[in-house]
């Protein structure tokens, strides 16, 4: 019991290896110092950002009608810290228009931000625009007959919200700056970084997780401010678009492990937590990842393990065969440990526990047993494993050490028998 009256554990000295491991994580996550623009007053002027265009990092000044100020470097110079990229900008390619099925329209620009590209089409004779969002596994196109939704006093209107949550709107005519009331975004520290940006043709882009955003525009002539309250729940949802799957594999089978892996990587790219010290560098390119083992494909609780050439491992959770979320782990099994449980899921009230992790090449088989239950052989492949265990429903969380594991070599000789954690 601590002095606070709560049953808290005593504080412990920080082991030097943990201290240095965390230091390395922070170090490896952050590129050489690049100053980020600070908020200045109620409005933030269009600021210098580092852009990612067509696979290259481009330093550029994005203003209302600017073009990139610096030519893209060769593709090899792709920024390793793409998660820090707020908004990229470039001319729309014919390939993007074809992907979107908008080959017949003129396009203004393509904007890229975490995990997606947004194609902004020119206004047609009736003043209507088409928009398209391309992610790693999906293509969504705005419906041709959708109507703008006015917000505020009508000086601002929302033209589209993409399925991944990017809002495209019409700013007041002549707006030269845009900001979002920080009070409307209470969770800036722990969620996807917000993007709010004026783009050419008096349009703006807004990407945030906040359910309500108070947006403010500065208009140059006459000098004035225009505010608008954007309530996400009052905007149309997926019905604003037609969406199709477009997996890199070329197959449309949603239950294909490669497609599930791609969908999980897609979800993480577009909606995952901010780039932090514990995210493998190899997440820069989702194509580097491959599925290895899968359990619970046809159940409410499943897991797909992903591996990358460098040995990093990630876990894609499945619900009834649909990829829902991605988690990662950077530790690998070593000779001493032979296997390492790195992640798992538990479904409260069902008695289902899924454990997953990595193995060394010495391991051929892992058999897990929980008290009173039949042994279950783990799926083992490519230096990874996953096992789905069932037992009586419990109210307390399980720990890997609650299970016993037999570790056998490829010839069936036992290497270890004992707690799994």
């Amino acid at each position: 019991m601590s002095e606070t009256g709560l049953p808290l554990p005593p504080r412990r000295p920080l082991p030097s290896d943990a201290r240095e491991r965390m230091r390395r994580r922070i170090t490896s996550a952050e590129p050489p110092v690049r100053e980020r623009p600070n908020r200045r007053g109620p409005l933030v002027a269009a600021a210098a950002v580092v852009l990612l265009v067509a696979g290259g990092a481009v330093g550029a000044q994005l203003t209302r009608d600017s073009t990139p100020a610096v030519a893209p470097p060769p593709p090899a110079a792709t920024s390793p810290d793409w998660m820090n990229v707020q908004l990229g900008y470039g001319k729309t390619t014919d390939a993007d228009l074809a992907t979107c099925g908008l080959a017949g329209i003129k396009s203004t620009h393509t904007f890229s931000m975490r995990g997606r590209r947004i194609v902004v089409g020119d206004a047609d004779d009736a003043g209507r625009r088409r928009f398209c969002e391309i992610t790693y596994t999906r293509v969504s196109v705005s419906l041709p007959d959708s109507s703008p939704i006015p917000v505020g006093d009508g000086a601002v209107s929302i033209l589209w919200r993409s399925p991944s949550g990017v809002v495209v709107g019409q700013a007041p005519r002549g707006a030269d700056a845009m900001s979002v009331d920080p009070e409307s975004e209470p969770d800036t520290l722990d969620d996807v970084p917000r993007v709010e940006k004026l783009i050419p043709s008096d349009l703006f882009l807004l990407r945030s997780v906040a359910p309500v955003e108070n947006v403010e525009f500065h208009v140059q002539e006459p000098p004035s401010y225009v505010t608008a309250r954007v309530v996400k729940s009052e905007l149309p949802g997926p019905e604003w678009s037609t969406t199709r799957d477009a997996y890199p594999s070329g197959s449309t089978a949603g239950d294909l492990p490669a497609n599930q892996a791609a969908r999980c990587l897609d979800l993480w790219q577009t909606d995952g937590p901010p780039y932090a010290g514990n995210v493998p560098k190899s997440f820069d390119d989702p194509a580097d990842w491959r599925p290895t083992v899968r359990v619970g494909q046809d159940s409410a609780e499943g897991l797909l393990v992903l591996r990358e050439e460098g040995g990093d491992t990630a876990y894609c959770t499945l619900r009834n065969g649909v990829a829902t979320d991605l988690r990662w782990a950077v530790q690998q099994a070593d000779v001493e440990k032979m296997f390492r449980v790195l992640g798992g899921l538990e479904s409260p009230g069902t008695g289902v526990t899924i454990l997953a992790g990595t193995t060394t090449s010495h391991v051929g088989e892992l058999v897990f047993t929980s008290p009173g239950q039949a042994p279950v052989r783990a799926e083992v492949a490519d230096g990874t494993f996953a096992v789905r265990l069932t037992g009586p429903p419990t109210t307390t969380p399980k720990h890997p050490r609650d299970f016993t594991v037999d570790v056998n070599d490829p010839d069936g000789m036992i290497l270890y028998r004992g707690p799994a954690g």
Partner: protein
Amino acid sequence: MRLIPTSRQGATTLVEGSDSTAGRTDAELWTRGDEAAFGELYDRHAEAVWNHAYRLTASWSTAEDLTSSTFLTAWRRRHDVTLVKDSALPWLYTVAGHLARGEFRRTTRFQRLLRRVPVDDTVRDHADQVATSLDGEHRLRAVLDAVARLPRSEREAVELVLIGELPVGEAAAVLGLAEASVRSRVSRARSRLRGALEEK
């Protein structure tokens, strides 16, 4: 960014001089905002934040992730934040709390029926086995469950004062509240927690 180990770590000898971080207050280092200064802040507070992160998550491996993320967030936002007291610890604890709650929200958003199985702790030694015995871990999880059900205003105060064991004055400063308000929130929360934990 390079987090430069200071001479306290024995890995690198810090050259004394105008660039030295020795003897500087947290506020001075924070204002300087360079890599050496931030490295010193990391060395001063990593252990406290790591322990606090464990108390917020009941998992040493998650605590490591959370500590890394906390310092990374602090580094990125160092120009946006002015320390209200000399110590950076209240701010770092606040960031850790935000991040810990963010992970919980993310879990509920995508995995309403699933929860993470606590995995092997990254740090392994005898003390680890003793301190993270199943009973202790379950007791801590029970506390965290009860804290998570507190109103947000009380939860923030509890995380800083009861779990983080910060002085009320420092917690009040970082929360932007009067000390009396923090005391009353903690007092109310303590009663609720006592009731919740007695039910278990």
